């Protein structure tokens, strides 16, 4: 019998703690595949965020660190500057990157740190119980926006990728989604490109934003969540390459 699909070595052989229909498992797998395809496992260091993916090191079989909320880009800076030969990536959610760590990602991009950022945007704080994130959509009901997000009170969803693309220090910014097979393949391509840039020594920060489903806190079935990404989220967070200056 011919094997047509198998686990990639850098993805550990274990169940995850993620909810049914969550996008983190897919995103982890894509990163693991890219690391294996580029053959960089033995020089890669990953950074797990505070949030649902805090235990990413339980699933990704590379050297990893878990750091304070929002600080991955600063930690990555400390790692990459002292270890220019290593491949450093951070894996961050929207609360981590776009709210409490807004200064860190902005300035890592501003300094042109040669790191790769995987930014998982699911429009809520997952681990703490589905509160409003900076990326929460207008009218989206969350634990802290019981009547839905109202722009006049809570502001608009923050388009971090567009913001970061304006910085001379960022070299590659792309927004992808996990909403279907084709979208997942595109996401993998983007993640691979972001890692390749770092491997090649390209001078600047690369970031892939991944629109990812959170059926639990969107109060939807996994299938509905995928559809919501395509029909609703992409209106505010349009997919595509925002910057590729290399």
């Amino acid at each position, binding site marked *: 019998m011919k094997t047509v699909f198998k686990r990639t070595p850098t993805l550990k052989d274990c169940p995850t703690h993620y909810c049914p229909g969550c996008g983190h498992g897919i995103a982890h797998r894509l990163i693991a595949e890219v690391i294996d395809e580029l053959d960089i*496992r033995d020089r890669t260091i990953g950074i797990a965020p505070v949030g649902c993916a805090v235990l990413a*090191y339980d699933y990704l079989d590379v050297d990893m*660190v878990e750091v304070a909320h929002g600080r991955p880009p*600063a930690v990555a800076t400390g790692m990459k500057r002292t270890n220019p030969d290593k491949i450093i990536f951070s894996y961050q959610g929207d609360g981590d990157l776009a709210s409490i760590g807004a200064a860190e990602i902005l300035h890592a991009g501003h300094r042109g740190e040669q790191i790769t950022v995987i930014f998982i945007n699911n429009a809520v704080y997952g681990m703490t119980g589905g509160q409003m994130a900076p990326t929460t959509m207008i009218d989206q009901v969350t634990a802290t926006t019981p009547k839905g997000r109202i722009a006049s009170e809570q502001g608009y969803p923050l388009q971090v990728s567009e913001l970061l693309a304006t910085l001379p220090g960022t070299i590659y910014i792309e927004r992808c989604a996990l909403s279907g097979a084709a979208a997942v393949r595109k996401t993998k391509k983007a993640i691979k490109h972001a890692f390749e840039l770092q491997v090649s020594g390209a001078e600047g920060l690369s970031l892939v934003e991944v629109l990812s489903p959170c059926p639990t806190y969107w109060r939807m079935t996994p299938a509905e969540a995928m559809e919501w990404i395509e029909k609703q989220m992409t209106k505010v967070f349009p997919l595509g390459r925002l910057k590729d200056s290399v």
Partner: protein
Amino acid sequence: MSPVVHSTKKKGTEEKGQSSNGAGERVLMCGNEALAEAAIIAGCDAYFGYPITPQNEITAYMSRRMPEEGRVFVQSESELAAISMVFGASATGKRAMTSSSSPGISLMQEGISYLAGAELPAVVVNVMRGGPGLGNIAPSQADYFQATRGGGHGDYRTIVLGPSSVQELVDCMPLAFDLADQYRMTVMVLADGILGQMMEPIVLDKKPRRALPLKEWALTGAKGREQNIVRSLWLKEGVLEELNYKLKAKYEQVEKDEVLCEQYEVDDAEIVVVAYGVAARIVQGAVNKAREEGIQAGWIRPITLWPFPTEQISRAADEFRIFLTVEMSNGQMVEDVKLAIAGKAPVVFYGRPGGGVPTVDEIFDKIKQLTLRPKTQDNRAKNENGI
């Protein structure tokens, strides 16, 4: 600004971590620049910092010298980021440091707590200024509680060194890096605005490193081994409790082995003045003056503020004498002095908060006031009656 006498030695001829401008020569430097150069000699691989007075000379000096040595300097966007950068470099096994002054150190407490949880080595210099809040930029010792009690959240300790001269500040740096690596802890060098700004003649010597454990935990890419994970989150029941017991055992070892303290003329003293850092320099002048006037005075100077020289101070209190604690604060270390003495002798406090610096005469007057007794009476009796 920089008064360094630069060595004529060729650069790059010495082992990394041992090369330095001016190494081994007597030079005149301000404390901030001197400690920076001492850190370079001690093998600091990376410095991350954010501007704040009165320690800006460190950042400026490092921005010039670290690249010269082929090492890392980054001016961070905040103190939160600076300590996180230290965290990142340290997680990969590098010797990393940051420096700041009081308000900035408050921001760094997040990172220091994470460093403690993840058991990562780090060196943090606090050139203290007056507080609370934005306070002022005058010298102060008001961060003693914050430094010696941990400062951030959770059950942890940092080793705290309290040098009292620029030379001792210089000597603290290699010790700080060694202690950090040996115990996988944050070592805080607690200086103040005077020490940072004051120029004194110093010798920048190369010190042999302690025998240090290999950093097998470091994140270097999992080449030919299982993955390493540096973390501080332990959700499973009982695991974090175990970690805390492990940390406790480590801290007890530090308390047993690493106490540093200096004392002077304590044996026959009827009054012992306890002070650290710059305050101890002023106290020394006051005690000398008291001796000249026939007052039996001595001093004890804690060099490690944590671990605190509890035993040394307790021993000094086995014979009845008055203890005067002098600090540039409203009284913080005095609590540790009282704990050490445990009621065996009276402990009096004299301090100047908010950037105030006591003079030799102020302290001398206090000594005189506390020891002024009719000469005919027995010492012991008079103390019991008088205080």
